[in-house]
C-alpha cells in the first residue's frame, strides 16, 4: 500500500493514547487531530491495546501483535520517576523473524535489569495491519505494553541486513516521528541504529540520530547513563546538546556532526566532524569477557511460530578464519570464547526458563571453539533420554565435525549435514581464503555417509572476485563426486546432495570492499549454465538438488551496503512508492528499486552500476572510512591484493599475528581456551513436583 497520503509533517499521522484509559472499547474516540495533539505533549506511554484489538480480527496471524511471550517484561512507565530512560527496541522485520533475534533479546534484558530504565519491543507490521492502523489512527506500538513508540526516549533499531531499511521508515511514520533526523524535535525519540549493517549506516544516516558500532550490551548501558544524566539535569540545550554529549563521549556515531563532501568524479572527497570535540573516527565496541555477560538468561518464548524454534547460546564471538567475503568475521574480531562452564550453565538455565526442546550452539564457526568436543559430549551426556536436541550450526568441512555431528544425533535421525565450501574451484577457494581442498571435502562426506547420514547440503556463492564460468561449473563436478562417494560408501541409492547458491555482495570492512559486484544478468547466466551442467548428467542429476535465487535482490543489497548519504533519497522514494519488507521475495520489487534509484541518482550524475559493479581503488575515500572496525585499511588492501594473486592467509589463533590491526586499535586480545573451567555437573535430579507424593517421599510408581 503506497503511503502517498502521508507526509513528514502531517499532523494527522496516527499517534497517541486514547482519550480515556478507562473508556470502554469502542467508546467514541476524540477527533484524530485532537488526539494526536494531546499525545504530542503527554507522551505518557498509555496502552493502545484496546484500539488495536478492534483491528486484529481482520489481519493475518494476529497473535504476533499481542505480546505476552514467556519471559517478557513490562515495567511501569515511571518505574524510576521522570528520569526513567525508556527504550523501544525494534527489529525491522516481521515478528516471526525478529522475536528470536539474539541481539534484541540481550539488549532487552540488560536494559530491563536496570532499575532506572525500561525496554519494550516493536516489530514491522505487515501491510494488512499497516493499512488498518492508518485508517483508524493507531500508532506504531510495542508488543509488551502496547505503548506508542513515539512516546519513548529512544528507538533502538537492529539492522542485520540492509533490506530492513524501508521497514524502519514505515515504523517511524506510523509512530508519528519525522523520517529525517533534522526535522525531529524534543517531542520525538532519538533513533539509534546498531547491528552488522550499521557498520556502514551512511545510506540511512539522514534517518538516524545515532549509531552504535559493534557489541551493543555495554554500549546501550553507556547511552542510558548519558540520557539519564541529561534528563535529571532538566534536558539543558535540548536534543542537539544530548546528541553532542553522546557524540563527544565516543560511545556512538552521530551522523549530523560530520560533513560529507563529494568530488567531481562523484566519489567522496572528505568526511569531517563539524563540532569541537567530536572524534574524527568512531571506534566499535568490543565486549571482552563473555562469561560476564551470560545473556539472554531468560530467552523469550513466543506463542506464535518463529523462524528459530530453539534456544540459542552464543559459544564465542568473532572469527579469524579470514574468509575474505565475510563481513561478520571481519567486524567481530578478535575471537572471544565463552568457557565450557559458562556454556553449560546457560544451557541449563535457558532450558529451565523456556521448555525449548532444542539448543543451538551459535557462533560464526562453532566447531572452532577450543573446548567444543568436551562441550558437545558433556551436553549430549547430560541431556540423553530427555528428548532434548542439540544443534551446531555453522561448522566447517572436516572429519572432526562428523564426530561432533554423530555425538549430537546419538539417538536421533541423521538426515542432513551442511557444509559451505563457498567456492567451486580450488583456485577460487584460495582467492576467498576458504581453505578447504576437494579431497578434504570428499573425505568428510565419505565419513558422514558411512555414519548413516543420507543427505549433504553444500553452500556456495556466485559472483566472487576473479570468478569465471569454469569455477562455477566445478560445483557440478563436486556435487557429482559427493553422490558417487556416498553411493559407494553406503551401498545405497537414496543419497542426496543439495547445492545451494547465493549471490556474492561485496561488503564494507572486508578485503573485498573494493571489488566489483557481478551484474544480475551475468549471475543469472552463470547459474543457468551450472543448472544445465547438473541436470544433463543422467547418472547423478536426479540426486542433486539445486537451489538458488536470481541475482536481482543482491544488486539492491549491494547498492545499500556500499552506499553513501545520497542514497537516503532513494530509500525514502522507494518507501513512498510502496516499498516494504524487501527481504521477502513476495514483497520485494526489483523493478521499483531500479526505476526509483536510477531517477534519483541521475540528479548526481550517478547510477546503480556506479555503486555496485564498479571496482574501487586504494585512493578512494569510502563512505565508512571514518567508522573504525579496528581493521587497518592498508592490511585490508594487502589482503585484497593477495586474494587477487591467490595467496592464502592463516588463522591468528594458531599462527603468529598478521597485523590486521583490531587488537591494538580496540585494546583487545584473542581470548581462547581451553579455559580450564569445565562444565559443572548438574545438581542432583530432583523428583518432579507434579508426581503423587512429591515432596514427601520418592516420586511416582513407574
Amino acid at each position, binding site marked *: 500500500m503506497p503511503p502517498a497520503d502521508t507526509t513528514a509533517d502531517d499532523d494527522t499521522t496516527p499517534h497517541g493514547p486514547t482519550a480515556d484509559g478507562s*473508556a*470502554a*472499547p*469502542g*467508546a467514541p474516540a476524540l477527533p484524530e487531530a485532537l488526539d494526536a495533539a494531546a499525545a504530542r505533549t503527554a507522551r505518557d506511554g498509555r496502552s493502545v*491495546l484496546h484500539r488495536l*484489538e*478492534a483491528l*486484529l*480480527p*481482520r489481519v493475518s*496471524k*494476529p*497473535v504476533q*501483535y*499481542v*505480546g*505476552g*511471550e*514467556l519471559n517478557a517484561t513490562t515495567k511501569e512507565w515511571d518505574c524510576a520517576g521522570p528520569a526513567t530512560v525508556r527504550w523501544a527496541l525494534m527489529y525491522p522485520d516481521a515478528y516471526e523473524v525478529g522475536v528470536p533475534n539474539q541481539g534484541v533479546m540481550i539488549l532487552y534484558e540488560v536494559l530491563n535489569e536496570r532499575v532506572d530504565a525500561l525496554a519494550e519491543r516493536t516489530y514491522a507490521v505487515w501491510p494488512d495491519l499497516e493499512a488498518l492502523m492508518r485508517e483508524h489512527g493507531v500508532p506504531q506500538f510495542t508488543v509488551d505494553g502496547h505503548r506508542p513508540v513515539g512516546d519513548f526516549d529512544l528507538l533502538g533499531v537492529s539492522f542485520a541486513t540492509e533490506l530492513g531499511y524501508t521497514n524502519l521508515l514505515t515504523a517511524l511514520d506510523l509512530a508519528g516521528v519525522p523520517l529525517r533526523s533534522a526535522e525531529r524535535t524534543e517531542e520525538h525519540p532519538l533513533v539509534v541504529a546498531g547491528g552488522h549493517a550499521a557498520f556502514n549506516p551512511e545510506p540511512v544516516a539522514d534517518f538516524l540520530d545515532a549509531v552504535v558500532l559493534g557489541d551493543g550490551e555495554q554500549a546501550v548501558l553507556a547511552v542510558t547513563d548519558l540520557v539519564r544524566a541529561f534528563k535529571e539535569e532538566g534536558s539543558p540545550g535540548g536534543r542537539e546538546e544530548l546528541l553532542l554529549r553522546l557524540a563527544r563521549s565516543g560511545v556512538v556515531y552521530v551522523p549530523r556532526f560530520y560533513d560529507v563532501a563529494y568530488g567531481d568524479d562523484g566519489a567522496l572527497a572528505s568526511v569531517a566532524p563539524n563540532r569541537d570535540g567530536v572524534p574524527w573516527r568512531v571506534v566499535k565496541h568490543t565486549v571482552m569477557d563473555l562469561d560476564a555477560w551470560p545473556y539472554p538468561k531468560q530467552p523469550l*518464548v513466543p*506463542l*506464535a*511460530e518463529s523462524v528459530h*524454534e530453539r534456544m540459542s547460546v552464543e559459544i564465542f564471538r568473532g572469527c579469524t578464519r579470514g574468509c575474505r567475503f565475510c563481513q561478520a568475521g571481519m567486524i567481530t574480531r578478535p575471537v572471544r570464547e565463552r568457557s565450557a562452564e559458562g556454556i553449560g550453565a546457560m544451557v541449563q538455565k535457558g*532450558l*529451565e*526458563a*523456556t*521448555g*525449548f*526442546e532444542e539448543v543451538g550452539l551459535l557462533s560464526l564457526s562453532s566447531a572452532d571453539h577450543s573446548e567444543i568436543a568436551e562441550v558437545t559430549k558433556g551436553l549430549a551426556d547430560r541431556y540423553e533420554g530427555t*528428548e532434548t536436541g542439540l544443534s551446531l550450526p555453522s561448522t566447517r568441512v572436516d572429519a572432526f565435525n562428523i564426530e561432533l555431528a554423530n555425538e549430537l544425533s546419538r*539417538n*536421533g*535421525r*541423521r538426515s542432513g549435514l551442511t557444509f559451505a565450501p563457498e567456492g567451486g574451484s580450488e583456485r577460487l577457494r584460495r582467492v576467498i581464503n576458504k581453505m578447504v581442498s576437494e579431497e578434504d571435502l570428499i573425505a568428510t562426506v565419505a565419513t558422514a555417509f*558411512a555414519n*548413516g547420514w543420507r543427505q549433504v547440503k553444500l553452500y556456495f556463492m556466485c559472483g566472487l572476485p576473479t570468478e569465471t564460468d569454469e569455477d562455477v561449473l566445478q560445483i557440478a563436478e563436486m556435487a557429482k563426486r559427493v553422490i558417487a562417494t556416498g553411493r559407494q560408501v*553406503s*551401498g*545405497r541409492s537414496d543419497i542426496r546432495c543439495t547445492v545451494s547458491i547465493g549471490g556474492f555482495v561485496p561488503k564494507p570492512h572486508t578485503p573485498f570492499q573494493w571489488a566489483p559486484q557481478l551484474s544480475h544478468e551475468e549471475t543469472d547466466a552463470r547459474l543457468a549454465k551450472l543448472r544445465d551442467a547438473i541436470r544433463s548428467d543422467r547418472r547423478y542429476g536426479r540426486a542433486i538438488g539445486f537451489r538458488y535465487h536470481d541475482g536481482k535482490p543482491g544488486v539492491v543489497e549491494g547498492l545499500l551496503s556500499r552506499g553513501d548519504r545520497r542514497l537516503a533519497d532513494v530509500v525514502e522514494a522507494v518507501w513512498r512508492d510502496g516499498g516494504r519488507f524487501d527481504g521477502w521475495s513476495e514483497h520485494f520489487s526489483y523493478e521499483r528499486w531500479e526505476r526509483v534509484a536510477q531517477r534519483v541518482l541521475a540528479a548526481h550524475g550517478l547510477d546503480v552500476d556506479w555503486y555496485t559493479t564498479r571496482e574501487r581503488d586504494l585512493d578512494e575515500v569510502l563512505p565508512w572510512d571514518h567508522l573504525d572496525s579496528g581493521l587497518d585499511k592498508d592490511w585490508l588492501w594487502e589482503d585484497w591484493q593477495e586474494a587477487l594473486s591467490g595467496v592464502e592467509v592463516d588463522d591468528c589463533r594458531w599462527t603468529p599475528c598478521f597485523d590486521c590491526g583490531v587488537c591494538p586499535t580496540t585494546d583487545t586480545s584473542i581470548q581462547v581456551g581451553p579455559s580450564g573451567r569445565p562444565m559443572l555437573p548438574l545438581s542432583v535430579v530432583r523428583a*518432579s*513436583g*507434579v*508426581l*503423587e*507424593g*512429591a515432596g514427601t517421599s520418592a*516420586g*511416582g*510408581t*513407574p
Partner: protein
Amino acid sequence: MASRTPEGPPPPPAVQRLRLRYARRERLRFSSHRDFQRALERALRRAEVPMAYSAGFSPHPKVSYAGAAPTGSASEAEYVEIAVTARCDPERLRAALDAALPPGLDVLEVVEVPLHGATPLADLLEAGVWEVALLGVGEAEARRAVDALLAAGSAEVERVTTKGRRVLDVRPAVLRLDVVDPAAARSTTGRALAASSAASGEPCAILHLVVRHAAPAVRPDDVLTALRGVSDLAPPEAPRATRLAQGPLLEGAAAVADPLAAERGAVGV
C-alpha cells in the same frame, strides 16, 4: 550399511491418563490452536511432567487435542488429554502447568480418566455453549434478528477456507439462541462490556448460543453472518465471542453437561 534404528529399549509406557480443561482469555484469544500446542508442549517440559512419548527417531509427547475454539474467540472450556509415565497428582499437575503457561492460557481443572476404555474426548464434546457480545447493538434489534433466524428453516452462509469458498447451512446446528439481559452475562468480556455499556449508555446485546458440533463446525462468526443475512443487523464493532462450555448434549434441554463429570472423583482414589 543397514538402516539405523533407535538404540535402547522402547520408551516407557503410559501409566495414567489425565484430561485438562483450560481457558484462553483476553489478548491470548488471538493465539491459534497450533500456537497453543507449542506452548503446552513447552509448558509440560518446564513443569517436568513425566510425559509418555511415541517411539521412533522423532518421539512426540502423547497429547490429544479436541475441537479448538477458532482463533480470535476466547474460551472457558477447552479440553486436552495427556498420558504420563509416572502417576501424577491432578491438582499439583494443574498448578504446575498453569504456572508454566503464560497468563491468559489458564489451566482450570485436571481429572484422571481410566487408562483404557474411557469415551474419547471428541465423542463427549457434542455441543458448545457460546456467549457473544455485540457492542453498539440494541437488545430489540438483536431480538428481531434472532427471531428471524430461529423462524427460518435454513440459513446458508458462505465461508472462505483454505480450500476455497464453501457454503454451509447454519440453522440445523443452532440448537438454541437467546438474547439475554446484559446483567446475565457470564464471560469476563461479556460482563465488562455490559458494565461499560451500562455506564456509557451505549447499547450492548448479549447472545447465548448452543451449537451442535458437526463437520464442518459452525462457528459464532457463521451464526452472526446468518443473522446479518436474515435481518439488518450490522454490529459497528467486532463481536466478542467466548465459549462458555462444551460437553455431551442433555436430551431435550439444548444444554450441555460437564464432560469431566463422569470421571471426576471416580478414578484413582
